[in-house]
């Protein structure tokens, strides 16, 4: 009979039911959308923050004291320690390889140009690197797998320093005869695109044709940029870089599992360490980089990484609070809608009482309806919310917003709970009343 009652409600009170289901659906879709967004907000926002540039610096272990003013080396020692840039491809084999957005090695030579000492820096601009077939990549704390196909990716200044404004053209990485000159230096020296400059370091010389002028407002403007092999040639080296800037996508430490926060990795149990290792946080990424680049000093560039983490923490908190507030508010609003729909049927409750229904009977009937409304509204709301979350992610971040699957059970549960509680309260109140009052329609 209960089933029959439900069917009848569906068939004959469709319009009223639909209005209530609509209320639940809107609440549920808001919940699903906001949950979906806020669960991944630090990842999405973190990707945007890569626009600030590299947040990790790798330099050769050693006791060199760099003399740099305003980012421009003013003196380079003859025997400075260097790291091998050909090893850098290994950065794409670490567990968090997909979080390494890009990296660029640098080597600066102080060369004589027109009787002046100019800083000439070699780097990668947009260099293709290949991970050969069969290379071992880490895909778990203690697991590796081999790459089935050769993969190529491009990295360099173009990737990690998106704010470079180059008037003219970029230097090609295989080309050792071209240069991109900083705007400040170009102005002072009277250089323009197309000019040729001759540089000399000790007895070695090289000629560069200026193909582009870069302006950034910062220290880049006081240097000349050429391909890394060109600087190697000037310095009589076959390889080497004095530092590598790495741009990595990391999440705040506050996203760590609760028991791991604030714990020193060296004091963790093996299980904890494995979890920590597999969390996308700065400490773990740096550890993994050090594993593939031994004898290299790896540290966070605090100016970028600290502000980033603090900002992500705040945005994460903001979205969480917004979600909680919106969820709370809409849960209450939906409960109000349920209450209104029960209140509308007071005469019905009265008549059921009059013909001998138990409070339990009445509760069962109304709560079954509420459960149905909750489930249908929750499911519809989830689907809608999914679309909304994706639309939002695409609009704001130009990325696909994949909603974690846990959002489905949460949305359904919330919708069900809200519908049930929202009905239970007015039903409980109504069954306590005198049937005569209910029948009168008060």
């Amino acid at each position, binding site marked *: 009979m209960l089933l029959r009652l439900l069917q009848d409600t569906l068939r004959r009170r469709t319009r009223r039911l639909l209005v209530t289901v609509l209320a639940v659906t*809107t609440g549920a879709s808001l919940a699903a959308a906001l949950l979906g967004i806020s669960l991944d907000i630090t990842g999405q926002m973190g990707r945007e923050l890569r626009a600030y540039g590299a947040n990790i610096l790798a330099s050769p272990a050693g006791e060199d*004291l760099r003399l*740099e003013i305003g980012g421009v080396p003013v003196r380079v020692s003859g025997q400075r320690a260097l790291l091998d840039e050909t090893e850098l491809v290994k950065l794409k084999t670490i567990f968090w390889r997909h979080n390494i957005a890009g990296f660029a090695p640098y080597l600066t030579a102080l060369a004589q140009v027109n009787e002046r*000492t100019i800083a000439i820096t070699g780097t990668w601009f947009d260099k293709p690197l290949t991970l050969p077939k069969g290379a071992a990549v880490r895909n778990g704390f203690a697991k590796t797998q081999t790459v089935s196909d050769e993969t190529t990716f491009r990295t360099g200044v173009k990737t990690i320093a998106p704010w470079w404004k180059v008037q003219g053209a970029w230097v090609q990485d295989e080309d050792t005869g071209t240069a991109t000159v900083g705007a400040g230096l170009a102005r002072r020296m009277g250089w323009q695109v197309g000019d040729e400059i001759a540089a000399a370091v000790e007895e070695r010389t090289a000629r560069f044709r200026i193909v582009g002028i870069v302006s950034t407002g910062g220290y880049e403007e006081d240097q000349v940029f050429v391909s890394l092999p060109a600087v190697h040639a000037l310095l009589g080296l076959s390889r080497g870089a004095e530092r590598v800037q790495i741009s990595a996508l990391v999440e705040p430490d506050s996203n760590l599992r609760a028991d791991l926060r604030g714990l020193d990795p060296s004091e963790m149990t093996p299980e904890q360490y494995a979890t920590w290792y597999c969390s996308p946080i700065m400490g773990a990424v740096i550890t993994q980089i050090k594993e593939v680049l031994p004898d290299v000093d790896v540290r966070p560039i605090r*100016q970028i990484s600290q502000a980033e983490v603090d900002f992500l923490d705040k945005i994460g908190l903001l979205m969480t609070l917004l979600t909680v507030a919106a969820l709370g508010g809409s849960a209450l609003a939906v409960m109000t809608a349920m209450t209104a729909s029960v209140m509308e049927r007071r005469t019905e409750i009265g008549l059921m009482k009059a013909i001998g229904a138990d409070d339990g009977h009445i509760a069962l009937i109304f709560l079954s309806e509420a459960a149905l409304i909750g489930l249908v509204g929750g499911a519809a709301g989830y689907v809608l919310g999914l679309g909304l979350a994706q639309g939002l992610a695409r*609009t704001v971040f130009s990325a696909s917003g994949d909603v974690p699957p846990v959002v489905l059970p949460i949305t359904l549960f919330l919708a069900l709970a809200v519908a049930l509680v929202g009905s239970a309260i007015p039903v409980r109140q109504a069954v306590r009343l005198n049937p005569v009052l209910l029948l009168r329609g008060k």
Partner: protein
Amino acid sequence: MRFAWRVLFGSLRHQRARLSIAALAMALGSALVSGLLNLSGDIGGQVGHELRAYGANVIIRPREPSLPAGGGELDFGAVSSAATFRESDLESIKRVRDVVGFVPYLYTIVEVEERRAVLAGVDPLAARALNAWWQVQGRWPEAEDEILVGVRAAAALSLEPGDIVKVGYGSEARKLRVVGLLETGGTEDDQLFGDLPTVQSLTGQPGQLGLVMVSALTSGRPLEAVARELQDLMPDAEVRTLAQFAQAEATVLNKVRLLIGLVAALVLIAGSLTVAGTLNTIVMERRAEIGLMRALGAADLRVAGLFLAEALSVGATGGLVGYLAGLALAGAIGRQVFETTITPAAWGLPGTLLVGLSVTLGAGLLPVRRAMDIDPARTLRGE
């Protein structure tokens, strides 16, 4: 007219329960709308402030940058004469709107422990305020002979907090005390930082600066505008925006504004629909009443007027309470996240009222209007 008020109040009183539900729904919806409107209105300013944690985004340099030699043979491809600019020019910077802080620097190369190192003269208080990521082991310099040493420099020169080190520039020398080690992961790790006047006197450049790093908000006017204003105040210097920070900040600010704006729109729509649904349900109950009144011969306008008055009472009460609740909510969230107070958005109140009014009229009165188009007998029968 007096009787009309009696009818209205009687009606309101008689249906307290039902109208309280309506008012509650209205309040909840308005709270959400108001909260989000106020939050999204101020989010740009809040986030803009947060992004100052990245440090300076404007740089002021002398027209010809100087990389002064110390002891002769070093020359860096720039005009070798010491090109600096005057410290006194800085006074005017303080008054520029949107400038949050600035740090003046004077760089030089000195001899320490028979090696060369970069020594920068700074204002420690300003540096500490602007460069939030400077991590100091030990303490910050307070006296004029105290210095900070970057961790790599400290390792290379074997210096520790507490050491007194002799720093030489040409024929000048100073005995300076290391009070802290600085770690930033950047070039500062290789440098020494001392009090600005001390470095100025050591290098014989009293009142001169090599560089000023400025931190300015970009949530109000564009950074270029601030830079132009600074340039006008300091014609002897070159003012540039640091693209690295300016560009990223603009991107991030826009994304956050867009995100919160869209979320606000979502909440607005969802809140309105839910409230509309509730009001609709409540009003549907009244159709018999409408039929009765019309059967008694009431003019449609009177009936509509009564319902409108009821709707407005409910809408206004709920809306006002909701607006205030939403304001408090936005403030609480703002305090929790940004630790500052939110300024209420100018369009917060009118926006909330507008939404509330539309929902009330749409969901509350539309069904009433439709009921009035029907033959009274049918509404009385309960169809």
